[in-house]
């Protein structure tokens, strides 16, 4: 007879671990079960090249909650966050490139080199983004109201959120409400003239979306990526020393310190549901019982792969099956013998510190999406390039460098062919070829490469359709509609089964907030 747990958490991704840590601190006997042999889910660092610490999933911690870091004492467990400055370098093939600095005044001066009008509006723009993101931040940690019911507590929570919005002042409140559902194209057209600047900002709004910057609602995603960014900081680039997996390691350390158990190589085959209650899981053909089961897997995997779908009411099942995933990101990892030399900004310098964004104009990003719309990888992709070894030499031995590239758009569903070895190799070559246009020496620097297609992301990390956010971050799949209306409060129609992953409010990115919110709701029950 195996021991029984209070709570089983499925998946040792960062949200699963955050939830586990809070629950075990509250006295639950928690067992975290991870299918892979490493912890972290898509927040993981792996030696895909011997001796190199490669962030195979996320390579930045977008909006990691300070509250979570503090509450769980993650610094004590070895977490060190590295904020890059400049945050973004946007190279060009010809002409003057752009850098965004953490200091908005310094950025305004950088922008002045390409447009004095844009330089003048930069600081007010960052203020607007800051206010709007501040509102989202309040919404992030609020459990969304259940719009399908009439719970008085929900109304109070909504009222509090409304009050927060109101405190922005009437003018700003109206402006925030106005811009939220807009396309980032329209927002930027209102503010700026420079294509390069618009490209830099638009790219941030479409990360992980099977949409271009001209699609409605992309302002919301832009703001999502600026929650917790700090005053005036645009496109924050925050890494973890030693690789992002150190964050997961720190979370595991905190779980274990409070008496929880994290088991790797333990794939959950099935969630056991008896009489409408989740009562445990099956692992290695053995049953493990618990008072409740908390899944950090995405909704499709949770309800269709890990459960008997017939345990769900058909209408709920339909809603879950209708969630859009449509992953568009691929990852390319390169071992470099030296640093790339950009034609527009020769030599080694600060510009290599943060993210290098291949997004020379908003139209460029929109065209990159056009291909995906018809089921083809972008011929001229938007690339988010990071060289973590620059600020953190420990991740690459012997003076070598690591380059981590998010390639967008690589649609999960291909019109022609499949994501086989040849498609994978072609994608890696295209990423390098795209960069070589800006930094011709790169081709001679590449010593090894490793490519993960959306299919690889699905198979390795269990991300349905390779969607890094556990469901597309579009307005219809956010807030009280995430994952689906009527189930946005971390609870599910199956009693004792909770969700705590990025498929729940507030969504994707390495934030820890879904896990934090889920733990709070579980403890409330």
């Amino acid at each position, binding site marked *: 007879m195996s021991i029984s747990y209070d709570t089983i958490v499925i998946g040792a991704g960062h949200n699963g671990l955050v939830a586990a840590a809070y629950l075990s601190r509250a006295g639950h006997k928690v067992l975290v079960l991870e299918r892979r042999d490493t912890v972290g889910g898509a927040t993981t660092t792996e030696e895909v090249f011997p001796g190199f610490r490669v962030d195979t999933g996320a390579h930045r911690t977008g909006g990691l909650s300070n509250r979570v870091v503090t509450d769980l004492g993650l610094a004590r467990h070895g977490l060190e966050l590295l904020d890059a400055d400049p945050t973004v370098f946007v190279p060009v093939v010809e002409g003057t490139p752009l850098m965004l600095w953490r200091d908005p005044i310094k950025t305004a001066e950088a922008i002045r080199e390409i447009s004095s009008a844009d330089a003048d509006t930069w600081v007010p723009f960052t203020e607007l983004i800051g206010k709007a993101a501040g509102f989202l931040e309040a919404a992030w940690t609020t459990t969304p109201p259940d719009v399908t019911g009439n719970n008085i507590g929900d109304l109070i929570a909504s009222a509090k959120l409304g009050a927060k919005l109101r405190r922005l002042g009437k003018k700003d409140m109206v402006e925030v409400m106005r811009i939220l559902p807009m396309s980032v194209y329209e927002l930027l057209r209102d503010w700026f003239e420079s294509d390069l600047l618009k490209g830099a900002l638009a790219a941030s709004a479409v990360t992980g979306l099977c949409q271009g910057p001209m699609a409605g609602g992309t302002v919301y995603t832009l703001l999502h990526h600026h929650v917790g960014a700090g005053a005036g900081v645009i496109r924050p680039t925050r890494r973890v020393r030693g690789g992002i997996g150190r964050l997961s390691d720190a979370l595991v350390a905190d779980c274990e310190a409070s008496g929880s158990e994290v088991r790797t190589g333990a794939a959950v085959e099935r969630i056991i549901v008896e009489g*409408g209650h989740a009562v445990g899981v099956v692992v290695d053909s053995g049953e493990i019982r618990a008072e409740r089961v908390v899944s950090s897997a995405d909704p499709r995997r949770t309800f*269709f792969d890990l459960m*008997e*779908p*017939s345990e769900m*009411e*058909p*209408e709920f*099942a*339909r809603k879950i099956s209708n969630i859009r995933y449509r992953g568009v990101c691929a990852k390319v990892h390169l071992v470099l013998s030296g640093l790339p030399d950009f034609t527009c900004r020769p030599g080694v310098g600060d510009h290599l510190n943060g993210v290098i964004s291949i997004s020379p104009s908003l139209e460029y990003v929109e065209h990159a999406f056009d291909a995906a719309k018809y089921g083809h990888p972008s011929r001229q992709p938007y690339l988010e390039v990071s060289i973590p070894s620059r600020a953190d030499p420990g991740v690459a031995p012997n003076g070598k460098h690591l380059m981590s590239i998010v390639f967008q758009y690589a649609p999960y569903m291909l019109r022609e062919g499949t994501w086989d070895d040849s498609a994978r190799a072609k994608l890696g070559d295209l990423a390098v070829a795209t960069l070589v246009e800006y930094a011709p020496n790169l081709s001679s620097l590449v010593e090894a490469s490793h490519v993960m297609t959306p299919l690889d992301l699905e198979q390795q990390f269990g991300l349905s359709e390779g969607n890094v956010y556990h469901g597309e971050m579009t307005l219809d799949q956010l807030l009280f509609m995430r994952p689906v209306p009527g189930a946005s409060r971390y609870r599910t129609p199956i009693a004792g089964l909770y969700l705590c992953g990025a498929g729940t409010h507030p969504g994707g990115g390495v934030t820890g907030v879904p896990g934090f919110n889920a733990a709070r709701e579980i403890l409330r029950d």
Partner: protein
Amino acid sequence: MPVDWLPGRLRAMLRTTPFHSRTAPLSKAQNWRRWSGYLTASSYELHHDREYWAIRSSAALIDVSPLYKYGIEGPDAERFLDRVVTREVTKCKLHQVLYTPWCDADGKVMDDGTLTRLTDDSFRLTSAEPNLRWLLDNALGMDVSIRDITDDLAALALQGPTARRILHQAADAVADDLGFFRHTTGEIGGVPVEITRTGYTGDLGYEIWTERGNAEALWDGIMEAGDAHLILPAGMLALDIARVEAGLVLIGVDYVPAHRAVIEDRKSSPFELGLGWTVKLDKKSFVGRDALIAEKERGPEWKLRGLEVSWDSLEALYGLVGLPPQLPSEGWRASVPVYSGNAQIGYATSGCWSPLLKKYIALAHLQSRYASAGTDLSMEVTVEHHRKKAKVRVVETPFFNPDRKRSTPEVAR
């Protein structure tokens, strides 16, 4: 107004059934109605009287092709159906047919039909309304294919005391010992057919299924064999009386399908429709189970019952205005108040004069405490423009339930 770009059954405003080339020339009355988008005979003759009597005393042939039909196949077919319907599909034997309703998550009836087990992992389900989406929703994550085969399959109901003898001749005796709610295969008029001992008349009867292209051969084969046994094509008016006598509910008339109900009160549970016997609460899980367990515990609020109108009461009411009792020659479908004293405690939804029983009968929803057999109530009747109350008595259904419906005696040669 035909619309060319629409697929299949949406293209024409009203479609004809695969038997139309046979039914149309027989239709002396040109009395047609619409049934699920198909043109269907209400009656073939100017009055449906003879067609009704064919059902009860010889045999009637009814074109039931507009029934919705679904082919359900695959390793999970049994598990899938067991989840959807209220009856135990796991106990449905090969070549057995189940009559069953199915419910939404709140345990309210969405539709009802027959389910035939054709092989271990293939079934055919009939329904009155389209159900494909609901079926597909329930099949998410299961290894089962569900096809709407409504258009592919022609169907006839052969109903009445001489039906077995007709089939004996037409189908080479394959259905001679076919039991009640069983299925078999054979050949009629040179075409392969499936035969089920089912129907909507409460009499001895069969339903015969064949591919659309074989429809005319099937019709001809049955009519030819039926000639000596006084077969008559029958329409919906005759069928409507037979089904009220049989106490069989009609969707959209005696109950509102749950997913079409605008308000909660319009929905009915199987318990409220007299279909409690189809609800197998022992099944581990099926849609609506929790709600039905709760309802069973507290007892249903409503019950569907038969009402017999007192002849003396009718005679007295009409006598006051100097008329003999006026009786509905066609079945009616309306909501008619039912009273206990002065309080309305229910409503009748279908009624007719039963030519066979010589009784005015109705199906009514009654509040449970007024629903025991033998309870005396009254029902509204309109006598010469004035609303009156006729005495009625609550009775069990079916009103008419002949032994021949279920029995399987040797066929008289």
